[in-house]
């Protein structure tokens, strides 16, 4: 790895010289399912009766989530007859004005299942830069002003890395490493990329199986650097984000669709239900605290809020489970169906179904209760759907469809 250091240092120095010195601000929603991929934000507030603050047109399809960084909203799209045009757009979070747009040409395959889109992966940010990837495995980094920092074409580099149903894993950034999972039936791997240059820091061969889950950061304690958790059909692998070295593994199998969530150091992994894992200090396999089949996340990722684990199944039933035992405490049917995952803040859970109905759930009610609803004005002519996971920032909610980005507020 030493050969990377002089150039990385130089690039970093250049970056410091040429980039504004942004720092990640409290309240940002910097990646898929927000800070630490938890689906929650400590300082956010979900309005009980959300209303549309503004909407902005989008130039292409997508089910990636918006992210919010330093007062800007970033969202990806794909357009063109084969979804071969890849867009990254930046909006002013305050009023929805488009600040800039960048467009790449897909260099990898753009075939997806009909409901899926090439813009399925949510970008991530470290507060200074945005790292965007599409199903074609094209990846690019920009500063917050839209200046290009680097580009990769991961299917050009690894030509059998693709999924004919579409790729959907969203990257995360840990320190100076962007962790991205390019896992599929054929040339399957995960990468740690130098955030400054986009070059490989490590490349890990992974199980040859289609995988739509996203990496999740996990910390042994507040002082320890986060490690990356890579989920697959084999289970859950913890890797050092800087070196890519394997730290520990849960090898009992896991979902390839809904991703894990971490709360208070415990990992809740979808695996024929949900399994709660407590990692050991010595990198031994994690202890299995419980395995509950009462919770069925299906394709949707769970979250932990107020000491309970929440998941939605395919039928639109929210299950609230005790994080200590995995026992279901209550179930609440809401209007589905869902593709996006729930997000939460305080005592409120927000779910947006495919038909664009946003529903706010009070989790303090004895069996949960829907407090408010808002129907988004979807394009009926194109039968568009809302397939993304919402983003939270302050008292605002950000949601996108194939044609529009909305900010919802009080």
């Amino acid at each position, binding site marked *: 790895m030493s050969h990377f250091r002089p*150039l990385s240092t130089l690039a970093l120095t*250049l970056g410091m010289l040429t980039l504004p010195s942004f720092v990640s601000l409290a309240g940002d929603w910097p990646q898929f399912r927000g800070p630490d991929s938890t689906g929650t934000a400590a300082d956010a507030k979900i309005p009980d009766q959300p209303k549309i603050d503004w909407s902005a047109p989008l130039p292409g399809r997508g089910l990636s989530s918006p992210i919010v960084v330093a007062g800007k909203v970033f969202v990806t799209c794909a357009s063109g007859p084969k979804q071969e045009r890849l867009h990254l757009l930046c909006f002013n979070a305050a009023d929805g004005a488009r600040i800039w747009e960048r467009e790449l040409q897909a260099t990898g395959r753009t*075939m997806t299942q009909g409901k899926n889109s090439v813009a399925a992966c949510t970008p991530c940010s470290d507060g200074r830069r945005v790292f965007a990837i599409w199903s074609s495995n094209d990846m690019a980094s920009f500063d917050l002003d839209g200046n290009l920092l*680097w*580009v990769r074409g991961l299917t050009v580099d690894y030509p059998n890395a693709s999924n*004919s149903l579409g790729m959907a894993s969203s990257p995360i950034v840990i320190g100076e490493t962007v962790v991205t999972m390019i896992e599929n039936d054929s040339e399957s791997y995960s990468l740690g990329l130098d955030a400054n240059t986009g070059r490989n820091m490590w490349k890990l061969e992974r199980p040859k199986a289609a995988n739509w889950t996203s990496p999740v950061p996990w910390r042994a304690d507040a002082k320890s650097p986060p490690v990356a958790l890579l989920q697959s059909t084999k289970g859950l692998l913890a890797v050092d984000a800087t070196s890519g070295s394997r730290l520990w593994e849960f090898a009992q199998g896991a979902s390839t669709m809904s991703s894990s969530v971490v709360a208070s150091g415990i990992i809740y992994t979808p695996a024929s239900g949900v399994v709660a894992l407590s990692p050991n200090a010595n990198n031994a396999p994690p202890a299995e605290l419980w395995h509950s089949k009462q919770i069925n996340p299906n394709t949707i990722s769970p979250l932990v809020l107020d000491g309970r684990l929440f998941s939605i199944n395919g039928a639109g039933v929210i299950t609230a489970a005790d994080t200590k035992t995995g026992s279901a405490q209550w179930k609440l049917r809401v209007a589905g169906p869902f593709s996006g995952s729930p997000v939460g803040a305080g005592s409120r859970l927000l779910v947006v179904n495919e038909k664009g109905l946003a529903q706010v759930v009070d989790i303090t009610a004895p069996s949960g209760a829907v407090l408010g609803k808002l129907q988004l004005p979807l394009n009926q002519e194109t039968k568009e759907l809302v397939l993304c996971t919402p983003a939270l920032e302050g008292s605002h909610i950000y949601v996108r469809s194939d044609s529009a980005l909305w900010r919802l507020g009080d």
Partner: protein
Amino acid sequence: MHFRMPWLFTSAGTRSIETRAIRPVENPRDGAHDMRFILPRMKHFLAILLLASTANLHSAPTDALNTLAAVGREGAGNEAAGAAWKAVVQAGPSGLPALLAETGKGSAVADNWLRLAGDVIVANALRAKQPLPLAEVEAFIADTSHTAPARRLAFDLLQQADRARADALQPSLIQDPVQELRRGAVQRIIDAAKTQTADGAKGDYLRALDAVRDEDQTKLVTAELRKLGVPVDLPRHFGFLTKWNVIGPFDNTERKGFDTVYPPEKEIRLDAAYDGKGAQVKWTPFESSDEYGKLDFNKPFGMQKEATAYAVTTFDSPVERDAELRLGGKNAWKVWLNGAFLFGRDEYHRGQQMDQYKLKCHLKKGANTILVKCCQNEQKENWTVEWEFQLRMCDGAGTAILSANAGTK
């Protein structure tokens, strides 16, 4: 037909995405390799830094453009490219012609560096109300000797800068050698046909059929022409190969057949018999009647699971030339052209699409042998019944290349 292929698993020497899969992936930790690539470029890198800080707004930064075009595999050259990109953008609109000229000379990833620079140059110029060299851009589009990615980019930049001007140019691209540039012109004819009487529409749709290359537009034009009583030969339009000899089944238990070298990969002898899966197998002629050229192995072999089969055909090219062999399929497959392995993919039942895989290849004059291996796996769901592929020969614009012996096996 009886010949041997002793040179199996050699590269056909093409640069398509698919073809590169057969090469070993470079070890990302191979520091010696990285530094060998990077150190000679440090000189460029420092020159570009200087250029970026003192950018001459009236000249094209040649070194910077070269640096972007030189970006290689696994991000090699990204370090220098970041600064070069800024230099190119700072050079402004006067650098656009040089930027376009550089596009298509490196990799597709390098083209994205250039595309994003062109995109920002135009956006900045529009915001600053700076003039853009649109006449030069138009002339660049008109010159078909330029690379396809460069001409696509030029058209996109023209659209971004002046939509009306791009719209005015579009009809002239109806027979363009770049597939993507034809599309808009074809769509105009289709839209015009919808407003015509039957006779007028028929003429328009026939003109559209002559130019159309995209599957969705072709389907639409074909449907309209057939309603008007005009026959359309889709296999011929697209160049699907429909006449094959097939052999199988061979074993694919635990999906091991994909990597197992069965006799058809060692020799093509149409009169031979081999040990197959549970019985002797022989080559038999098989012709697909599917309009999109799908060769369904379930028809000659029955509904098999965990089975491998081969199809072989001869493509007679009147001249030696470059071509694209385009394949669609939802089973694991491998393809050889004249004994040289082109590409293979071990994905099952994730979806099928026409032109799903585009394999750049080179046809020799005369008989060219195309061998396809197609594997069915163990899955039992009703969406895993298909055991098929479709294959066509065309040029880069998707225009069919027909075999001189079309109709023979």
